[in-house]
């Protein structure tokens, strides 16, 4: 573990204290000036260790701990709101970043044999399950789904299956090509996005003991253990830094952009409609393709607007970068189209250009949604008159 070098004295100099505290701190005891100094200095170390960003200049230890808790809580909340493959992807990304040698197991094309990842050279296994919580009206049915899913995973690891309610041995061929030769799992973590009921604990542990007795134990040790890990447990297990939060929240951000896009109405996209009507006049043989194109463009335009709104609300710095990127996109597309003898061929590259420009600013954080945003930006250029076409031998569409 890396050591944190401390080049400053153990206690901050008095002159560094805010004047307000210096004037009023004449008492002794827990509210004394010296006491506050100690706490403030420890707070500095805490910030370094936890990577907590403190905006205020005069934070108390309690406030810093609140901020620290906030990171963990925020990550747990984010994990809990992820479902399906997004949840599994985030859990694997998290484990990869904190567990040396964590190995993910691709589920395609041969299946994952019930194991989503392993570490410690095959001694520890990980199974993930992120049910769509909204689809369960009652906690009882959600508990049952979780128990059933993990029991099924454990049966696959232990090479068991039910034949008319009788537990019988079978072969899990894929396990032989997943775990290192001769290695057996000593512990299995079952990671789930909802763990607010103890009623999943007993059935899973009981089943695991039962399965171990019935199994040939080719890939799981006889003394192997199992543990159920919820979002809070996973968040608490290792420190949560800003990068972890950003990665997880990016997935949520994508969802919120999609949700916002659904509620957006592009008010009177008159110019866009006129251009598309003109296109239908020019190519009456392609009406279906044009209608489909219009739908796609409008959907992605709304996505682009939603992305704009979300950045503007919460990350003005990035919004400024988006604004600059838009300017670069239109300049590059215009330059290519104006200079080319085959401008329509260049228009075909518009999304590629937009994607490249946006990737430079947002690719590392919002990469997965950049295709939609790039297409949305092209739709916006058409809708806001920057790029268009006129009837052969006629006037502009606008």
């Amino acid at each position, binding site marked *: 573990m890396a050591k944190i070098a401390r080049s400053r004295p153990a206690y901050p100099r008095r002159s560094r204290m805010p004047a307000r505290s210096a004037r009023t701190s004449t008492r002794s005891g827990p509210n004394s000036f010296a006491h506050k100094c100690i706490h403030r200095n420890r707070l500095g170390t805490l910030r370094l260790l936890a990577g907590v960003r403190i905006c205020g200049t005069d934070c108390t230890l309690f406030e810093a701990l609140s901020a620290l808790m906030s990171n963990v809580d925020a990550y747990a909340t984010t994990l809990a709101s992820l479902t399906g493959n997004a949840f599994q992807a985030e859990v694997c990304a998290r484990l990869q970043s904190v567990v040396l040698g964590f190995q993910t197991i691709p589920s395609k094309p041969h299946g994952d044999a019930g194991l989503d990842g392993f570490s410690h050279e095959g001694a520890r296994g990980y199974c993930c399950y992120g049910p769509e919580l909204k689809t369960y009206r009652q906690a009882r049915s959600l508990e049952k789904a979780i128990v059933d899913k993990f029991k099924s995973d454990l049966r696959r690891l232990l090479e068991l299956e039910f034949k008319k309610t009788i537990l019988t041995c079978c072969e899990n061929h894929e396990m032989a090509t997943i775990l290192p030769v001769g290695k057996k799992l000593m512990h299995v973590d079952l990671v789930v996005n909802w763990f607010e009921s103890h009623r999943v604990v007993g059935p899973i542990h009981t089943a695991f003991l039962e399965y171990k007795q019935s199994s040939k134990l080719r890939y799981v040790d006889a003394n192997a253990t199992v543990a159920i890990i919820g979002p809070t447990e996973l968040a608490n297990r290792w420190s949560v830094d800003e990068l972890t939060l950003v990665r997880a929240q990016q997935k949520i951000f994508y969802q919120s952009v999609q949700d916002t896009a659904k509620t957006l109405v592009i008010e009177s996209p008159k110019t866009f409609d006129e251009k598309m009507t003109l296109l239908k006049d020019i190519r009456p043989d392609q009406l279906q393709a044009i209608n489909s194109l219009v739908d796609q463009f409008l959907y992605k335009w709304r996505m682009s607007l939603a992305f704009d709104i979300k950045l*503007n609300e919460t990350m003005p710095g990035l919004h400024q970068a988006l604004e600059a990127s838009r300017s670069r996109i239109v300049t590059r597309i215009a330059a290519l189209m104006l200079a080319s003898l085959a401008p329509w061929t260049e228009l075909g590259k518009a999304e590629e250009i937009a994607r490249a420009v946006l990737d430079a600013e947002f690719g590392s954080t919002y990469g997965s949604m950049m295709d939609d945003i790039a297409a949305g930006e092209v739709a916006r250029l058409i809708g806001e008159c920057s790029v268009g076409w*006129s009837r052969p031998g006629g006037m502009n569409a606008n």
Partner: protein
Amino acid sequence: MPTESQILSELLAGTSAAPYVHPERIAPSTVYDLQYRMFVVAACLRVSGKVEGAFRKISANKLRLLQFVAMRPWLLDVVREWSASRKDRQRSLQSSQSLRRGFLSDGMHDNIIDYLVATGCLFKQKGQIAEPISSVILSGLFDTSEKDGLFTTETDAIRELNEIVITNDMLEGW
């Protein structure tokens, strides 16, 4: 799979439709419009500022929040929730994280204030932003907008913000 612009390109390629490009027609976001931002600052000072001597003053941190929300009035509900939860530190942190990140990192606002200070329209005084009562630039901008009924959404948002309890704790981080 072809992209939308590739499909459009193919549809147009076989025709004699004439392309045109007007890069100048892209309208920049009003968030980066100097006059608009000056108006918002003027409105914050007029609606929420307090007259002290020869100056109309407002806390720099409060101005930062007010102008941010005035331009995004749909965030009023977030401020209300944040204000209501201010005594519960944990809930307060969770409910307002995005908003805090938003208004605290609004670099454009810093630039606007620096510009107004450099031009003598505003003064910085110990955490306060002060506008001389005698100055007519910002107040004139606000008066004209009021007279012509412009930017009422922003002004209404600032008035609504005045009704919400905003403490120094909320403004200075946590």
